[in-house]
């Protein structure tokens, strides 16, 4: 038995292939859209993975440090280290800002990491792609490669200049901004330090305040001014646990004895995925649904048109006594072949275009398989309409009209 479908495809192969490629691009966009959603979720998880923490200790009753601002005293960690089950505790600060390099600036999340050795302190970038980790206690930076910085570049953060000594990858904030790691003391200063004009103005205000500038108490004004330009706060304390301790138990004891809010990894994921990116995720999800519906409609329409184009040939087939099953099989096979070409082209297009998106696009194999199943189901369903039309055609049309 000859394959009617392949014969027909070969008959008009150019049209068929180009239709398939067009469909493929549409499927590619849908896959990328799913990838964008996965990328957003993965950004959040990458943030948590990279911090290397088991517990996040933040200001009481806040959802910090990622979803809300939080500040705790920078000596809080000493109390935490004394608790049972706590292995390491390290201060960390996060500040999203424009990092300047020469005339251009890049939106980045500046992370202040506690001094120490790589691997010993949570919060450090866990791996690099070039350069080295920070060794000096001041004025060095490790940047995510997505910032576009290179090793040796000089960055300006507030009034200080930092040298990029290392590059890392996939270190992003929950909103996808690349990270720049700098030593904690510098970061504390960057977070708090105003520009020089503001400092002068605030000094003048303090000097004008008779309660703080008393002629009979020399030195009081200096002390007040000095206390105004220090920042003994950090945004969170990252805690890692000794093996064998349950995160919830230790978190409870910190809540109880240190009077601070603590989140475990699971809770933090809930906050990031469930609260921080919830609206954007729904937005993307909505787009995904619309794209899927539009793709389905277009596939149905294309197959319908392809069938309509050869309605006369189908009538001839019927006239010469071809069985309905053969005709239905031809249309179904064509639809599935179209879907296959579309899927393959779509997957290739999605994979090669993914790195060019400004935010991270994560193509998950499960999504690809689900996408494949969806394409096949849509093609089969779409072909049903055409099959019904083809079977109803009057063989007389082959010689009439």
């Amino acid at each position, binding site marked *: 038995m000859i394959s009617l479908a392949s014969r027909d495809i*070969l008959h008009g*192969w150019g049209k068929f*292939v180009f239709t398939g490629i067009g469909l493929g691009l549409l499927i590619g966009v849908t896959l990328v859209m799913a990838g964008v959603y996965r990328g957003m979720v993965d950004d959040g998880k990458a943030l948590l*993975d990279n911090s*290397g923490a088991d517990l996040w200790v933040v200001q009481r009753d806040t959802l910090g440090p990622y979803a809300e601002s939080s500040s705790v005293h920078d*000596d809080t960690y000493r109390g935490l280290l004394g608790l049972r089950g706590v*292995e390491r505790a390290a201060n960390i600060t996060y500040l999203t800002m424009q990092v300047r390099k020469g005339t251009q600036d890049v939106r980045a999340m500046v992370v202040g990491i506690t*001094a*120490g*050795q*790589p*691997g*010993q302190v949570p919060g450090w970038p*866990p*791996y*690099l*792609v*070039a*350069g*080295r*980790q920070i*060794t*000096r*206690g*001041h*004025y060095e930076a490790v940047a995510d*490669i997505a910032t576009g910085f*290179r*090793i040796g570049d000089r960055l300006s953060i507030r009034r200080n200049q930092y040298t990029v*000594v*290392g*590059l890392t*990858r*996939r270190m992003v904030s929950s909103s996808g901004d690349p990270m720049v790691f700098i030593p904690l*003391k510098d970061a504390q200063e960057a977070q708090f330090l105003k520009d020089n004009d503001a400092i002068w103005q605030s000094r003048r205000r303090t000097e004008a305040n008779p309660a703080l500038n008393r*002629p*009979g108490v*020399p030195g009081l004004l200096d002390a007040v001014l000095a206390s105004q330009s220090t920042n*003994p706060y950090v945004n969170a304390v990252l805690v*890692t646990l*000794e*093996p064998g301790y349950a995160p919830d138990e230790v978190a409870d004891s910190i809540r109880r004895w240190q009077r601070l809010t603590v989140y475990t990894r699971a809770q933090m994921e809930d906050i990031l995925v469930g609260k921080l990116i919830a609206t954007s995720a729904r937005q993307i999800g909505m787009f995904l649904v619309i794209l899927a519906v539009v793709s389905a409609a277009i596939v149905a329409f294309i197959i319908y048109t392809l069938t309509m184009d050869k309605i006369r040939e189908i009538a001839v087939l019927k006239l010469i006594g071809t069985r309905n099953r053969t005709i239905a099989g031809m249309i179904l096979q064509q639809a599935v072949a179209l879907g296959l*070409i579309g899927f*393959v*082209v779509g*997957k*290739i297009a999605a*994979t*090669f275009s993914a790195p060019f998106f400004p935010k991270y696009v994560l*193509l*998950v*194999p499960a999504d*690809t398989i689900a996408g494949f199943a969806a394409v096949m189901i849509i093609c089969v369903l779409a072909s049903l309409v055409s099959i019904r039309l083809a079977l109803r055609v009057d063989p007389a049309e082959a010689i009439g009209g």
Partner: protein
Amino acid sequence: MRALKLQGRTVAMIAIIVPLVLVFAYVAMRSGPLAPVKVTVVRAQEGTVSPALFGIGTVEARHTHRIGPTLAGRVKRVDVHVGDRVRAGQLIGEMDAVDLSDRVRAQEATLKRAQAGIREAEARQAFAQAQARRYDKLSALQATSEELAITRRQEREIAEAGLIAAREALAGAQSERAALVAQLDNLKLVAPVDGVVTLREAEPGTTVVAGQAVVELIDPASLWINLRLDQVNAGGLASDLSADIVLRSRSAETLPGRVLRVEPKADAVTEELLAKVVFEHPPEPIPPIGELAEVTVALPLVQAAVVIPNAALRREAGEVGVWQVKEGRLQFAPLKLGATDLDGRVQVREGLTEGDEIVLYSERALSRDSRIDVVPSLPGAER
């Protein structure tokens, strides 16, 4: 003819479908989470580590002389301006004496009165002595009564006591005057050392309280840097280590220095150790007090050790170590680390031998089961 045409179509069809399938297969295998992780490797090498400590500090003067009055008063004049060099003993200002000079003059009058009083007492004493002597002779000749003679003797004693009192009154008046003059001198503001004026805090006419400074002096030869170092990164800090000083305003220039002393008291709040670093040669021009300086303190070299870059260090299951590449498979090697230097070289005490191949950079976090693809450098990382 027909078969050929069909064949032509088939060939075209195959020409499109086959590359498509091949590309698809490549894409499915080489991207996404199934793809191998690109890594670069490096061999652990025998080498030297030149450890150093890095900290920042501010330029300070070892001795700051805050010169002001010992009593509350009004500033009369200040002769020096900020930046002037002064010599030890030089008059740099004066407080207003108000009524002090009048009181000195009054005291001089009192002094003269006391001198006059002495002269009077001397005259009395001389007369009383002469009288007493005369009556003594008359009494010996029985030419006068015993009682009169005794009276004259008593008068002489009184006159002598009067003289002593008058002399003491003079000494008192002299001391009183000396005290006032000393007070007058104390109103002069005098430079105690050779130095440079750094502050002129009060202008003539200003009232200052006791202890408040009018002029501040520093000795420019005594400049040092108050260095602060993170406590975790300050191992090995000691006196007499050589240091490189870079002043913020002269970042192109490295000035040689030396650690003078490590402060016995550390800063508990900022968790820093404090040390004083002196310049080997006093810099010219004098850097301003309070300028920020970056100091690199060199520690003794660590010779002949297995050395790895710090970018290779990872943490796995609570241990610091590196991913070792053995026959294309990954194996985590926990390490004991020694000295580190500022270029990111780390000495390995235990866990690696020379020539072991370890993962330096990786695209992603690695695990024992990661498939790796060793490349010379990671995409995007090359300059």
